[in-house]
């Protein structure tokens, strides 16, 4: 049986998720034996216009000129996976979204702002451009989760994303709770799957993987304010990786 053909694409991103893949060591070799990587611009020259079994897309959709490329990928691929928070939710790129774009351009490019090649719109998840079958959040992705999702797909299983809070993973490791250390942590509403890596390193969770479904955002704000954070900072704290989620779905009190 032919090995499934997979390809990696990237749009508006830092390419950190791709770099993580090069750190897989033995798991990368196992992966290479299980699939055929036919396109991966960052490490390969080869390209193809063949149909694909799985297309992995990193980065946000933030320019109209990228739309034809995305549509082409969707057309060629049986399964499209948006990996990394930028592709899954817009990620940190979305921090600029609440300022009208022109204002950004003026701040940044000054008098040169009107040059056409500097045109962008809001940073959006790939799903805003084309249908995405699965998303793997994380900034960067968690290697084990990526391998698990690919492994599940190869075995015909439906991959799943944890829908519980980072607190579970933190408590299982018996980490000192950041709130106990008078810091503000988004763990109670952040989506788990990272092993609570930041609190395990004594830094509060910033919800880089987005939130669980239906978080109690209003209560979280109150918890943050009770921990000493000014309300306006509490409101912006969660925007760091989740600006799109907040602006579109939830309105904090």
């Amino acid at each position: 049986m032919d090995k499934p053909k997979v390809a990696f694409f990237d749009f508006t991103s830092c390419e950190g998720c791709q770099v993580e893949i090069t750190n897989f060591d033995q798991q990368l070799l196992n992966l290479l034996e299980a699939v055929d990587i036919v396109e991966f611009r960052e490490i390969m020259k080869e390209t193809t216009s063949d149909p694909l079994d799985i297309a992995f897309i990193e980065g946000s959709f933030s320019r109209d000129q990228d739309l034809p490329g995305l549509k082409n990928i969707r057309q060629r691929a049986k399964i499209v996976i948006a990996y990394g928070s930028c592709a899954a939710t817009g990620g940190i790129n979305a921090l600029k979204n609440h300022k009208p774009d022109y204002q950004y351009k003026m701040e940044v490019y000054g008098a040169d702002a009107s040059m056409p090649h500097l045109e962008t719109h809001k940073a959006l998840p790939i799903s805003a451009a084309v249908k995405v079958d699965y998303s793997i959040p994380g900034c960067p992705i968690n290697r084990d989760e990526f391998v698990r999702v690919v492994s599940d797909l190869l075995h015909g299983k439906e991959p799943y994303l944890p829908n519980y809070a980072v607190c579970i993973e933190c408590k299982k490791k018996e980490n000192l709770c950041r709130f106990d250390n008078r810091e503000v942590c988004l763990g109670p509403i952040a989506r788990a799957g990272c092993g609570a890596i930041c609190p395990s390193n004594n830094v509060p969770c910033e919800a880089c993987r987005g939130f669980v479904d239906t978080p109690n955002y209003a209560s979280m704000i109150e918890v943050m304010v009770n921990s000493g954070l000014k309300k306006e900072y509490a409101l912006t704290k969660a925007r760091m990786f989740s600006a799109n989620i907040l602006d579109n779905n939830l309105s904090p009190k």
Partner: protein
Amino acid sequence: MPKDAFVIEKNQFSSWLKKLQESFQLIGPVEKEGHFVFSLIEEVNDLVMDYDTTMLGPRKFIFLPEEKICTIYQKDQGFTIKKVQDVPGQLLIGVHSCDLHAILVLDKVFLLKSFQDHNYRLRRENTLIMALNCTKVCPTCFCSSMGTGPFVELDKGFDFLLTDCGESYLIESFSEKAKDLLLPLNLPQADDSLFKKKEQLFQELKGRFIKNLDTTNLVQTLLENQDHPVWQRTAEERCLGCTNCTMVCPTCFCFNVKDKISFDLKECDRVRYWDSCQELHFAEVHGANYRSSRKARLRQFVTHKLATWVEQFGCFGCIGCGRCMYWCPTHIDLTEMAKEVQKSNFKRMREDGYA
């Protein structure tokens, strides 16, 4: 009545533990980043015997947070399954009364007459428990209300019981294994004065509880007030659905199972891991989620521990350790919720014509 009761100087106790380390893995309370946890002991001197409480109960060494159930190997014709067979012997040192009750509650869950969980039983049979009577009461403790502390009043299900008497411990043995381990030490017998002291310490401690819960008719009251406004209000205004409560609760037993299959499909590890009824999809079955609201899930936590557990297992699920309310980011207190239901018991009020 204990089978045997002796006195052991604290220095001698430490040396004895060092000797026991040759045959058992020692597990006890140590300090970690400003609070206490039960941990595998390398240096006996790391033990902190006068700890107040730990984040996770010692259940994590018998019912592990993540544990392999079996490995499945693919063969030419079919499969072979290899279960976990050997676990090292372990001694749990310094288990407080509440946590001891928690382990006995879990025994009722996993070691039924009809079915004994393989992994749980393997570890439980290879575990010796050295219980320790408390010397402190925390603001969140209410074990005395639940009949689970502050001193151990059981006579089986564990091996040793220590009571801190200053320079020494009163050490009582409650099992044959314990008796055999104490024999070679030739310890002096404990006399009546020591038992009097123990009783005195017990009474003193009982008077220091700030938190109480009246458990009279509690089961019925809770079951008859499923629509009480306290559930909705707490779930909406405070509960984050973070599952901290169920993670730190020493009697929670829900778990999920996942398969880790190798790429080449030759080998699969079947693993079980702690799950939580507070998770959104926990009560999702084919076609529906019968606890899709946070209110339903929060209510489930409280009513299971304080009511339906009794129907299931003949005892309360809550052993009064207070961990859930301490680690909850909004400090939701299940005793307060129960009291609110008791105070404005709507069914009773309806029957009496008041509501």
